[in-house]
């Protein structure tokens, strides 16, 4: 193949167009779709997620046994996570994305409850909206309901202990949790199909603007909540 026949400007243009196309990924791109993982990996990611969901389930059960009101409030929080993921936020690249709610969920409800609520929300997203899938549920639960929220929660707690302002803490927690979700998705795809670095470039690196947008959104939400519902935040042990 004679590559010299293709002018340099055409090659540069093609690369730029390809990169732009990748940057304009729609929101459902964060979920691994049905059929993208072989059966063994589907089972493996499912098994990896099970302990987190079980721990989350028992933590919720304990809360509900102590105060039955918690069940209704947690259900409301789960529904809120679903509605949040349907909102549109503008990205720096000019495209629109949907918030993952990873950071906000982890900061508000803690990583254990988020694992269970995330599982339920992901089932509904797969069945009702066609985002993600039932065979890849284990992998998606691990990236979006376990790994991302854990990072968000750890970052938030760490910065809270370091006496950093809550606004900065919430921004870092949401942005890093979001980014880490994409990193895990890239690793999940890369391990199976080869080329983790390639998947990281496409799925994680290009999502930095979206993560920043989600971080900013989470800060706005958090500030409004602090202003109008401090009692609820104290009840959730956020502040």
């Amino acid at each position, binding site marked *: 193949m004679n*590559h010299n026949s293709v002018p340099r400007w055409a*090659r540069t243009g093609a*690369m730029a167009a390809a990169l732009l196309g990748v940057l304009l*990924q*729609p929101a459902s791109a964060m979920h*691994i*779709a*049905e*059929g*993208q993982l*072989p059966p063994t990996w589907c089972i493996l990611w499912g098994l990896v997620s099970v302990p987190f969901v079980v721990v989350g*389930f028992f933590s*919720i*059960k304990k809360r*509900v046994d102590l105060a039955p*009101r918690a*069940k*209704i*409030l947690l*259900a*409301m929080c*789960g*529904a*809120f996570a*679903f*509605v*949040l993921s*349907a*909102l*549109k*936020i503008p990205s*720096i690249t000019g495209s629109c994305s949907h*918030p993952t709610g990873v950071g*906000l969920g982890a900061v508000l409800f803690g990583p254990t409850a988020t694992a269970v*609520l995330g599982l*339920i929300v992901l*089932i*509904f997203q797969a*069945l*009702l*909206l*066609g*985002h993600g899938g039932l*065979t890849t549920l284990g992998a998606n639960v691990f990236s979006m309901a376990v790994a991302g929220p854990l990072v968000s929660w750890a970052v938030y707690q760490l910065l809270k202990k370091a006496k950093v302002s809550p606004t900065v803490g919430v921004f870092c927690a949401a942005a890093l949790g979001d980014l880490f979700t994409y990193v895990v998705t890239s690793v999940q*795809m890369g391990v199976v*199909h080869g*080329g983790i670095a*390639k998947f990281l470039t*496409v*799925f994680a690196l290009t999502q930095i603007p979206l993560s920043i*947008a989600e971080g900013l*959104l*989470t800060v*706005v*939400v*958090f500030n*409004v*909540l602090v202003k*109008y519902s401090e009692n*609820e935040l104290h009840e959730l042990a956020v502040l």
Partner: protein
Amino acid sequence: MGTDRYAYCSPLRRMDPLGKGFVSLLASVVCLCCGMAAVGLFTMLLMGGLTILWGGQKLRTFGHFMKIPLAFLAIGSLTMVVQAYPPESALLVGIPVGDMLWGVDRAGLWEGASMFCRALGVVASMYFLALTTPVVDLTQGLRRLHVPALMVELMELIYRFIFTLTDGADRIRVAQKSRLGYGSARRSIDDVGVLASMVFLRAWRQGDRVYAALESRGYTGALTTLARDYESGKPCFWAAAGVCAAQLGIFALERWLL
């Protein structure tokens, strides 16, 4: 919302959800395990045919939902197909970047196409369940499968609250837009933030009110509902056997031809 409003109109709605789940699951598992392009495409056609002819959905509805996961499938397949090769490799398409040649060779393209077709088959299998079974019937099915009651109740409550909150969020968005909201990127982030926080506040306070209403009606911690009487799921098991046999037949044929 989404597939649910079509599922409520399906003639299969009254059929045992576990039977429909079995058809979907078996078709997905066989399609995934075979991992071949022809089996994937055939599964998509077969399950699409079942959803349209048996499940009473329009071709347009099925096509609309099939388009949704295409974005991730296309990006995933492309990322998998495009690889770095040493210079002077025999590629179908390629451009030099640095010392390497980035492009697509025949084996990579075939592998990517196989994954894409397999994914389409599994997606179509899942839609058979989603477009014929409303979520409330699925949760009843989960109860019969002995999924913990707390989990099923949480699912039922979340499902119910999704509609209430979505309705509230839609109304807030209309109010914001009518007051010149969402004008710029910065303004949009602010407006979405206010919208999300207001939805959260309403959710929290509404949760309190729902709990008070439940308690005043004798709530003791369990939301017991009566299960609906379903039509027998026997036809589903026959359908599952037929689909599975056809998939395995195509698998054998593809292996024999290639």
